[in-house]
């Protein structure tokens, strides 16, 4: 299995921006004083998870579907291919794109919420950071997928990837049927965040408004 628990650290410490420090300070104080409940806050933020960050990943996936040269580049050197579109992450991030095929399905786990590549994927869902999700995804990926309403053929292999501080994975889902001749912009509408984590599939053409 391609699951790797080793986390390598080229950087000796974490960084929070001045603004992030202030937000955390305020949130901690309000929580300690009982003014806010962090769980309720998470629920509210989750309501907007698809509204946070640019979700450039959808455009990356759409371009790979539409352009086979770009796809080849993306699968061999994802970091450079993604940067070529103008989407730069924080320093030190290395992106790897793994391609779903009729015989192989990829799924990404990561509890390192401070390292989740949100400029590419949007904000992570709350469950994604939870320890039970992570351990179950490793032990029983098919069960986790069925919780998300995704049933894959029995003979399809499932591979679980563990994001680390230095390597972030993005799943390249299979292009949905019935999308021949679609523009990249229109294809991007089919790409959900969950399909780029591997806990979902892209939308079907009939699921988006024409």
């Amino acid at each position, binding site marked *: 299995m391609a699951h790797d628990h080793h986390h390598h650290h080229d950087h000796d410490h*974490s960084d929070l921006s001045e603004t992030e*420090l202030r937000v*955390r300070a305020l949130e901690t104080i309000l929580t300690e004083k009982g003014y806010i409940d962090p769980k*309720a*806050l998470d629920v509210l933020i989750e309501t907007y998870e698809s509204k946070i960050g640019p979700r450039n990943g959808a455009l990356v996936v759409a371009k790979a579907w539409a352009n086979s040269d770009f796809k080849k580049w993306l699968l061999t050197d994802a970091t450079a291919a993604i940067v070529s579109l103008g989407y730069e992450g924080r320093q030190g991030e290395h992106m790897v794109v793994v391609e779903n095929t009729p015989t192989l399905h990829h799924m990404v786990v990561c509890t390192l919420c401070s390292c989740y590549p*949100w400029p590419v994927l949007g904000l992570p869902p709350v469950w994604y950071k939870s320890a039970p999700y992570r351990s179950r995804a490793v032990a029983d990926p098919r069960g986790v997928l069925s919780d998300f309403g995704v049933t894959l053929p029995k003979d399809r292999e499932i591979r679980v990837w563990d994001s680390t501080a230095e390597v972030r994975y993005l799943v390249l889902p299979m292009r949905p049927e019935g999308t021949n001749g679609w523009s990249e912009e229109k294809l991007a509408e089919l790409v959900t965040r969950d399909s780029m984590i591997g806990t979902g599939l892209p939308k079907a053409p009939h699921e988006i408004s024409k």
Partner: protein
Amino acid sequence: MNSAEAAKRAAKEIPSLPLDADGPVFREPWEAHAFAMAVALHERGLFTWPEWAAALADEIKHAQAHGDADAGDTYYRHWLAALEKLVAAKSVTTEETLHRYRDAWDHAADRTPHGKPIELRPDDFA
């Protein structure tokens, strides 16, 4: 009350909140946290939306007087500053406490290896 409904109402009550057809939009995760904190405090009755809108407007005016171009990208910075001032004005906390916790988080980030979740510990408070 359902928090998503509360947020929707906030979006209606607060002028100039960045929105699309479905509701508020955020450039970075911390902006959503700042937004959600204000919604939660409003629900607790700490302030009314008109009161909040006035505090935010003051903050924006102040920033503009000091050269903020207000291109939209600084909206939630003003939001956060207004929130800090308002909680201090309501005696929920003080400016000093905010600074102390800010420094503690800075310390926590410094000692946390890159890629590990950053958590606050008592010894982060100098």
